Each structure stands twice: as structure tokens, then as C-alpha cells.
């Protein structure tokens, strides 16, 4: 254990003296505020004028809606033409269909402007309606946000809940692999690994010393990423209200799932990158291999959040995919405790398997 701590201390000293590493570590602190500013800027620009098409079957709910939009200065209401066509061609940003106790906010899924404006409108109308109904003790109606095909999504399915998991997974895997490249393949290139192996130190101690250093860095990166995310999008204040905390449902459970899944994902990325660094002859090979491997989690996350793999149950058989699904769904507030538990347990077993295989390789002569 003493040797493991010695290796850990040396690795951390070396890493923290490297300016490049520090910059990589600090990226998450800036990326989420920049993302927020960028999205707000786009939104402000598109807020100048909103064209909506309103169709209604019953007058009662329509009157309430009219009451709401009378306070919104920048809305143009279109009543003529085919609403689906107008939405598809971009002549209107949002199509609102009002029937008995139901108000559907329909957006064009190919337009970011349409998605964000419709989300904003639906959220504001929900607040307006709830406030009004609490005062009059009337029945509550259903307010749905859906795309043009009729697929219902809740507010958390907006663009941020699509971008955030991809950004987080990319940061996690990319930065961990950056740190890991130097751990073994860098030492091989510099020939310092041979010097290490010539000491009385056990190979396993060297491995775990390096793994601990990488885990600490990865956790630090995760802490900064999640901290920056929650601070940027979690605080409801003026100017940020339209992107208020995206997680709904059981917030405690979903935040726990996000944190636990992210920790497990970061550990998986640590041991995957470390294994790549271990088997690579030099840093160039390690970087290349890690970049190729990076495509898998990031690509899969993108496919999952975009819904390409939504109807495919393949992920339930692959532990890491399952973990990613849980991680993503927690952002939408859809997680349940059984799913989370199964996903965490199967992935812990996967992690143990990766560690065992790596240690076995480390012990072999092939390491050099």
C-alpha cells in the first residue's frame, strides 16, 4: 500500500505541474456557462417574434390560452392554412391544438428554434394555467409538448437534455484518456517504465498507483463537470428561468442516478484508457486507440439521446449501454430505482473484469 501511495503521489505531482493537464481539468468549468450563454443568445435572437398557429375544439381552454398570450407581446397568431404544412415549412414556430382538457404544443423536430420556443411557451402556459386554476379550484388540463409526429415529450426532453449527456460523456472519456496516455505508454516511450520495473516494487503496486492517480483526476473532472452543470442550469434566477433545472420527477433519485452512473462511467473510462495505455507500444498508438474507443461511448450516447436506439432493446444486454441509458434518462427524470440498481451492479462486475484483465497483462512479460 505504501508503494501504491508513493506512485500515486509522484503521478499527481507530475500531472499538476503540467500546464496542459490543468487546462484540460478546467475545461468543464467554462464549457457549461459558455453553452448556456450561447443558447440564451440564440434564444434572445429568436425571441423577437414568435409565429404560432392555434386550433381549438372547445372555447373554454382557448379563452384561457388567449388570456395568456395577450400578455406576451411578441406572438403572432396564424389561423389560416394547414397547420402541419406551415409548421413543416417553417412559416410558424409552434402549432397549438386545444381540445377538451388538453392543450398540445407541437414543434418542428428539425428546427431548434421551434423546439426551444415551443418548450418555453408550453412551460410558461403551464405555470400560467396552474396559477389560474389554483385560484379558481378548477380541474387541471393536460399540457403536452410533442413533435409533429405526435410523440409526446416532457420539457426535460428539450435541447439541453440532449446536449448535456453527450458533453458530459465526451468530457469524461476524452479527458481521462488524455491523462491515461502518459501513464504507461508515455513511460514506455521514455523508458522510465523499465527503470520502475527494475526496482523492488511489485508490478501490481505500480498499476494500482497509476490507476488511483487517474481515478482521482477523473473524479476531480467529474466533480467540476457536474458542479459546473448544476450551478449553471440548476439555479433558477432571472435570465435563466427558461433553462431552469431540467430534471423533473423524483429529483433526489435522478440526481443520485446521475452522480452514481457518472462515477461508474468515469471508473470504466479510467480502466479502459489505462488498459489501452498499457497494451500500446508508444503514446501515438495509445492516443489513436483511445480516440477510436472514444467514438463508442460518445457515439452511442448521441444515438441514444437522439432516439435512434430508443426502440431497440439491445442496450439491456450490454452493461455499459444500460448504464448510459440510465445516465441519459436520469436527465429526463425517467429513472426508476430497480433499473438504476441493476445497471450499477452489472457495471461494477464489468469494471472488476476489466481490472482483472489489466492486472494480468501488467504481470506478464509482454508489458514491454
Amino acid at each position, binding site marked *: 500500500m505504501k508503494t501504491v501511495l508513493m506512485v500515486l503521489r509522484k503521478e499527481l505531482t507530475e500531472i499538476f505541474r503540467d500546464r496542459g493537464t490543468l487546462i484540460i481539468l478546467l475545461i468543464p468549468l467554462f464549457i457549461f456557462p459558455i453553452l448556456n450563454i450561447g443558447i440564451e443568445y440564440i434564444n434572445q435572437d429568436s425571441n423577437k417574434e414568435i409565429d404560432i398557429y392555434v386550433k381549438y375544439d372547445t372555447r373554454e381552454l382557448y379563452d384561457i390560452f388567449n388570456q395568456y398570450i395577450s400578455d406576451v407581446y411578441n406572438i403572432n397568431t396564424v389561423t389560416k392554412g394547414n397547420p402541419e404544412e406551415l409548421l413543416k415549412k417553417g412559416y410558424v414556430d409552434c402549432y397549438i391544438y386545444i381540445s377538451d382538457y388538453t392543450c398540445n404544443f407541437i414543434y418542428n423536430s428539425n428546427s431548434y428554434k421551434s423546439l426551444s420556443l415551443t418548450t418555453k411557451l408550453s412551460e410558461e402556459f403551464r405555470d400560467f394555467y396552474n396559477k389560474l386554476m389554483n385560484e379558481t379550484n378548477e380541474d387541471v388540463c393536460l399540457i403536452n409538448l410533442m413533435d409533429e409526429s405526435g410523440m409526446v415529450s416532457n420539457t426535460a426532453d428539450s435541447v439541453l437534455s440532449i446536449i448535456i449527456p453527450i458533453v458530459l460523456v465526451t468530457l469524461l472519456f476524452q479527458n481521462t484518456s488524455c491523462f491515461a496516455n502518459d501513464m504507461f505508454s508515455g513511460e514506455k516511450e521514455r523508458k522510465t517504465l523499465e527503470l520502475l520495473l527494475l526496482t*523492488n516494487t511489485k508490478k501490481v503496486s505500480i498499476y494500482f498507483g497509476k490507476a488511483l492517480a487517474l481515478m482521482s483526476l477523473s473524479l476531480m473532472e467529474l466533480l467540476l463537470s457536474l458542479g459546473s452543470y448544476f450551478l449553471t442550469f440548476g439555479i433558477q434566477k432571472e435570465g435563466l428561468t427558461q433553462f431552469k433545472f431540467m430534471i423533473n420527477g423524483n429529483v433526489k433519485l435522478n440526481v443520485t442516478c446521475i452522480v452514481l452512473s457518472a462515477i461508474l462511467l468515469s471508473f470504466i473510462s479510467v480502466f479502459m484508457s489505462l488498459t489501452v495505455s498499457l497494451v500500446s507500444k508508444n503514446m501515438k498508438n495509445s492516443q489513436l486507440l483511445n480516440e477510436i474507443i472514444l467514438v463508442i461511448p460518445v457515439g452511442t450516447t448521441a444515438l441514444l439521446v437522439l432516439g435512434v436506439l430508443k426502440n431497440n432493446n439491445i442496450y439491456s444486454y450490454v452493461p455499459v449501454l444500460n448504464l448510459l441509458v440510465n445516465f441519459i434518462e436520469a436527465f429526463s427524470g425517467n429513472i426508476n430505482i430497480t433499473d438504476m440498481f441493476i445497471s450499477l451492479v452489472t457495471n461494477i462486475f464489468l469494471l472488476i473484469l476489466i481490472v482483472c484483465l489489466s492486472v494480468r497483462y501488467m504481470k506478464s512479460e509482454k508489458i514491454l
Partner: protein
Amino acid sequence: MITLSNLNKSFSKNVVINKLNLQINSGEITALVGHNGAGKTTLIRLISGIYKPDSGKIEVSNGSKIGVLLGGDINLYGNLTGYEIIKYFGLLNGLTSTKINERINILDDILKFSTFIKKRAFTYSRGMKQKIGLVISIIHDPDILLLDEPSTGLDLEAANDVITFIKYLKSNNKTILIATHNIFEISDLSDNIAFISKGKINDVIATKEFFENCPPDEKNAYLIQAMKGGLSGENSFNGSEKRIN
């Protein structure tokens, strides 16, 4: 003492060490001389334990500690200082901080590295790196030292410091194996010269006797033959007493 018997090592289908036999006596300096690719570095790595032999035996005297200076460019941890690097390897070798500082003070008298030891390693020249490499290899006071081309690529001053360092080790009765392709560099230091070619030891000669007694016009011819691996038992320097006398 180190005894190597019938040692074999191949990488893929490339035979690098081929039925090699060699004995290195305690307290002696043996120079391992051969052309590039003769198998010197592989032999040092085999004795140090970095590589495992395919077959054959490596016997090292009981309880002997081994120190190794590996050949080629040494690239130390650039963001650590020389002192931190030495301390790291000292601690990994089981020394205490006090003992490490003591050893650094002793070795500094010979290798003179105190002027740059507190600077980060990325600022070091090749000679400075080599000196730190030598300190790392001997920080735990080993009984046996394996040095792979210790002065190759160094300027005159740094090479001279390395030679002084090896003399210091000799005075401390260490068993040393130095791999080199420049025999004249270690002619004053070594007790024996072992010629290696194509993974085999061709001949082992006593350095002093050879340089004192071999006729100058035959010396070079013999060395070239020995390094090429063209000697057999009959025309070996040790086997032909007439040429010595």
C-alpha cells in the same frame, strides 16, 4: 558472481541470444564488447530481469542487489526535479529519505550534479540526464552493476565524469558489467573483455595482459576478428600463449 549458462532468447523468430555462456567474477569489471545488434543490451536486460530467458540459467550470488543503467536516450520525468526523481526511485527501492540524502551527498562528490538537481528534468542536457540515470541505478548501493553504454553520446567532460564514477565503483569492490562498442574507452578500467557477436560470447580475455603484451600491429586485427565473431578456440587470444609472450 554471475553465471550464465546456455542462455537463449528470441523475439518472434529472431534469435538474439544463442546458447550464451559467461561467468563474471565478484569485484571484477567485465566489458561486454560487440557491434550494434550483437545482443549486448538484450543480455543486460536478461541479467537484470527485465526479460525472461527462453531457456538457460542465470545465477547471481545470493542476496546480491543489482543496479542497472539502461542504454539509449534516458528521458526522465520532465516535470519532476532530479532530486524528486532520485528520491522516488530510492523510496521504491526501500530506502528511507535520510538514507537517500546520504547517498546523494556521497554520489554528488563524484558525479557533481548538485548544481542542477533542484531543476526540472525537462531542462536537462543529455549528460545531466545520464548522471541522474547513474545515480538512480546505484542509489540503493547494489553489489552488481550492469551499465549499458554509459558514456555513449556524452561530451568529453560528462564522459570523463562517468569514467571517474566507474573507477569509484571499482574501488568499492562492485561487480560490474559494462556493455560498449568502444573497447579503448574502458581499457583502463576493465579486468576482462567478453566479445559478443550474434548472441554468443566468442572469447573472454584479460584486459591488462592483452593491452600490455599483444603486439600493436596484431591488436586491431584481433579485436576486429573478435567483434565480428570470427574467432574459434584455436586462434583465441587466451588460447594462443605465443601471441601474448
